[in-house]
């Protein structure tokens, strides 16, 4: 039941080089951070900047390298992969390696850029914080792990990068582990991802064993040429992989870890939400897209469904949040929903395009939020407000990020979101299209709410906030530029370079990307955005203020449901975690000590008990008992007494002769 569209295999007209020396050495991209991390850990403390300089240097190198890769890729197009065998098991070759093609180069670039800026920002933001050096170690590792993931030509390496990212997130989210909540949040993130990883793991196992290889390119090739091997398991594998993606890319219902992950320092959130962690899922889906497209189109529908659910659900929650970072977190979740849904709808480029733009403006927003929080020492928007005057740079950049996210032209978000809408429209997914539009509206609304609560109105906090240090504002400005311009690389009908960048691969993917603007989609998206902003501005500025704004839209019980995040966490803890952690495990332990052990000890005791019985009753004075029994009825009392007194020598004699008699009876009459 393989759906297969003929023009799928249309060989691309673009030409590639193998990228030459530059591509050959891109392994250094992956290795560098780890080496650096090592150095930071061990000699970092003794350096003037506590190791931050090493981290910065490394990430700068990576940035430069990715830029140069980007350059040659744009100019001549690169597609090549390299393998290193690290051992063979059975017929399998376990290979690491690195792939240099449009997709990964794009990711290199995103990671490089965002990471660089975040690092610069962090050097100042984390000034004087506890475990400063270690923070940079894990931050570097974080970036490195992401590079492992995106550079991987084999599924096994993807898995490795995947989990490494998870661990680094654990380290970073739990950075302030003195407080139990933080370490719990870290654990939550790790475990949730681990659960999702089961899906990924089994998916990989299925693919590997049915194709006989771990190389992605091989698998993709087979999935487009040799259907027999995969057709039976394709759907299962596709779904399982998607489960893995749900974990990292925080799709409903596995998104619960991401908001809690705000426990980490803000730069971490920025990096995590923009570049490194949450994009992994989308990246995986994109990487495996040809497989999905040709082998498991049904799976794509499911992917789309979840994407849409996520984008709406998370957006709604974002409305009710009072914690600035939480608002951004949920917006991330919902934006990821967009990307996943886009992939589901078959709009490969659109998804990646949104990933690309989102990376920049979301990083911008988080760093902005960070700068605010740094100033007011609080996450709660109720203790902010009126910061427009005191922190102009932050304000402007934040506004830029907001409109980019809300999707107003000519900002980045506009183009990417529009392309997604357009492809929905083109695919004829009308309901999903409107949900997406609604999502756009919601996005615009809660961002406006956030802005007005944070920057407009009067200051409600304590202390005297002030504009942040240049080390923090410079990255903001830089990102602002990206937030404005990064969308211009893929304007339908004008310039669609991005499409070519990310599609330059061995087998070209035939998927819809609009030649010109889809006016319907465009207008609806735009209107939704404007409405959202308008409503927000109306509620929180014109009519009343931050305090009163919420009341007008507090529709019980919807509001409560949203505030409790649809009770998902309650459900998980009440019905899954606590039972396992408390009841079941206790039961197992009890079973161990009270059933198995008791049994074992029991056997031992029975043995020695038996010994006692034999010793006292049979071996030593058994005859007594015997005689007493026999004599009790017949003999006279005296006789019995006498018998009771029988000492042992005679018993022995009796036993002896008794033995003889029994044996003779046995031999003579039985055998």
């Amino acid at each position, binding site marked *: 039941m393989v759906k297969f569209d003929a023009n799928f295999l249309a060989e691309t007209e673009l030409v590639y080089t193998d990228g030459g020396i530059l591509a050959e050495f891109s392994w250094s991209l992956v290795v560098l951070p780890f080496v650096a991390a090592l150095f930071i850990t061990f000699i970092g403390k003794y350096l003037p900047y506590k190791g931050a300089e090493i981290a910065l240097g490394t990430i700068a190198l990576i940035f430069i390298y990715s830029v140069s890769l980007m350059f040659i890729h744009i100019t001549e197009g690169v597609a090549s992969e390299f393998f290193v065998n690290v051992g063979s098991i059975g017929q399998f070759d376990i290979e690491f390696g690195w792939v240099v093609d449009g997709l990964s180069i794009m990711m290199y670039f995103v990671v490089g850029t965002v990471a660089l800026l975040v690092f610069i920002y962090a050097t100042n933001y984390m000034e004087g914080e506890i475990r400063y050096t270690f923070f940079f170690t894990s931050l570097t590792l974080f970036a490195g792990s992401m590079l492992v993931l995106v550079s991987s030509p084999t599924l096994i390496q993807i898995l490795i990068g995947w989990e490494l990212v998870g661990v680094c997130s654990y380290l970073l989210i739990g950075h302030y582990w003195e407080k139990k909540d933080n370490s719990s949040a870290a654990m939550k993130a790790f475990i949730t991802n681990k659960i999702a990883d089961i899906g990924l793991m089994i998916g990989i196992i299925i693919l590997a064993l049915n194709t006989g290889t771990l190389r992605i390119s091989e698998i993709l090739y087979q999935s487009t040429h040799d259907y027999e091997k995969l057709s039976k398991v394709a759907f299962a594998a596709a779904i399982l992989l998607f489960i893995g993606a749900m974990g990292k890319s925080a799709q409903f219902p596995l998104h619960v870890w991401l908001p809690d992950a705000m426990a980490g320092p803000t730069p971490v959130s920025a990096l995590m939400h923009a570049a490194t962690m949450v994009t992994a899922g989308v990246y995986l889906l994109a990487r495996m897209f040809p497989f999905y497209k040709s082998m498991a189109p049904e799976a794509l529908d499911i992917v789309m469904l979840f994407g849409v659910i996520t984008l709406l659900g998370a957006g709604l929650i974002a409305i009710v949040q009072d914690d600035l970072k939480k608002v951004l977190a949920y917006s991330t979740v919902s934006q990821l929903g967009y990307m996943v849904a886009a992939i589901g709808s078959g709009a490969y480029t659109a998804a990646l395009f949104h990933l690309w733009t989102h990376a920049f403006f979301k990083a911008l927003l988080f760093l902005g939020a960070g700068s605010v929080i740094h100033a007011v020492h609080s996450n709660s928007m109720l203790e902010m407000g009126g910061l427009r005057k005191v922190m102009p740079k932050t304000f402007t950049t934040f506004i830029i990020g907001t409109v980019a996210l809300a999707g107003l032209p000519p900002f980045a978000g506009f183009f990417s979101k529009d392309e997604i809408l357009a492809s929905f429209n083109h695919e004829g997914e009308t309901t999903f299209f409107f949900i997406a539009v609604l999502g756009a509206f919601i996005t615009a609304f809660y961002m406006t709410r956030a802005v007005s609560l944070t920057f407009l109105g009067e200051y409600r906090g304590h202390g005297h906030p002030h504009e942040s240090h240049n080390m923090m504002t410079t990255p903001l400005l830089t990102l602002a530029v990206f937030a404005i311009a990064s969308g211009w690389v893929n304007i339908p009908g004008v310039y669609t370079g991005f499409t070519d960048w990310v599609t330059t691969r061995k087998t070209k993917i035939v998927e819809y990307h609009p030649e010109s603007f889809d006016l319907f989609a465009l207008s609806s998206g735009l209107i939704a955005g404007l409405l959202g902003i308008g409503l927000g501005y109306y509620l929180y500025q014109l009519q009343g203020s931050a305090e009163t704004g919420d009341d007008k839209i507090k529709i019980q019980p919807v509001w409560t449901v949203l505030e409790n995040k649809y009770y998902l966490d309650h459900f998980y803890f009440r019905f899954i975690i606590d039972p396992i952690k408390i009841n079941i495990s206790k039961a197992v332990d009890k079973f161990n000590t009270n059933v198995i052990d008791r049994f074992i000890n029991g056997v*031992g005791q029975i*043995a*020695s008990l*038996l*010994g*006692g019985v*034999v*010793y006292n009753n*049979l*071996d030593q004075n058994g005859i007594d008992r015997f005689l007493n029994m026999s004599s009790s009825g017949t003999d006279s009392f005296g006789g019995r007494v006498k018998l009771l007194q029988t000492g*042992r*020598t005679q*018993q*022995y*004699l009796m*036993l*002896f*002769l*008794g*033995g*003889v008699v*029994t*044996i*003779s009876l*046995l*031999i*003579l009459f039985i*055998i």
Partner: protein
Amino acid sequence: MILDLILPRRSKYYVAAFALLGTLFSLAPLVVQWVNYTNPIYAFEDSFVVDKFSIIFKGLFILITYLTFLLSINFIESDKYYQGEYYYLLLSSLLGALIVSSSRDLLTIFIGIELASTPMFLLSGWKKGDRKSNEGAIKFFLLGVLSASLILYGFSLLYGLTGKIVFSEISTFIINGALQSSPVLLLSAILVISGIGFKISIVPFHSWAPDTYEGAPLPVTAYLSVSSKATGFVALIILLTKVFSSAGESWGVILAIIAGLTMTLGNLVALQQSNPVRLLAYSSIAQAGFILAPLSVAGITGNFQDGIFASVTYLIIYAFMNLGAFLTVQLFSNHAGSTNFYEWGGIAKKSPITGVLTTIFFFSLAGIPPLGGWFAKFVVFRSMLSTGEPIGLTLGIVGAVNAVIALVYYARISKVIWMDELKDVDSETSFKFESPLKVVGVFTVLITFISGIFPGIFSYLGEVSSIFFGN
């Protein structure tokens, strides 16, 4: 040959040293015989034979006696005993054992058995003042005499049945007369087995053993548990193979049952003991079960070579490790002045060497590699399973379980002496480890290890001796 019999006699009234020399010296002819051995030498109309089997056991007996002397020296000197008689009696018992090992007719073997056991009656009561000793003696004696008379009765029946007293003739007569299953033969077999069963203390003829062991002087106990047992087994092997071999099926089964019972009961009861000597007594009962098992299987399958090979090998290895065990018990109980080993807590710290020795011997008895015991157990298992006989298999499983049970109480002693807290009851008394005992320790330990690591030597002895019963 004759020298071999006479020499011990010579040394009757002299002191220990001479006895030692005598015994040692009497090894010489054996060696000579072994070296230029051609084929069995028969004397007194086939009633007395010298084959490798007998030579091996003569060697064993003499060595054991020698070690027993060494054990005894200090012991005897410590109290005022009649030394001369002591050695004399031991030697004459030895002589009996020697006779048994090469006797080939009813009369000789009977005389041998009597000669071997009668002195022990006295020796077991050697501690005149001690009631326990007397008591042990009388029980031992009464049962002993009873067993002797039973054996005799069996012999008389045998004689009546066949009119012969030389084994070879008897067995031929039986076979020719097709008397394998005649009740008389079986009855005599039963009587003989029971009689000897007393000497090798198998259930249900074992009950004297614990008391007598506990009562008798330790060296004597050691001798009883090793040499007398060996003598009994030698006699049993000879009789079963040379006389009753044709009726194997019937007594085989019985012996198998007895063996299983003996192991199990011995081990289970040993779990209960707190007196090391009683513990060893029961353990030696259990061991007897192990030695008996291959014979029984052999009886059933008729493949005597395997069975005797196993039994003999076991016997030889067992002899030395058990002697060693008694040695260590003697040392510790002397030191602790208590015959309840639960009061020996941490005593090993006083004399690590003895502690190590104890550990070695007891775990060897438990059959833990690389100590000799494992090989003994191994060959026994081997012969049990040799022919996939259901009875053999059952015995094998019973044996395996028993091996585990046994471990518990063998390990218990090491546990007490090593792991428990040191009770400073007599911390000031320095640990006595006299040189003769040292010799015994070294000798037995060496054998225990060698037999564990290079069992080839001992299995060779077993193999050789088994050849003479291959029929």
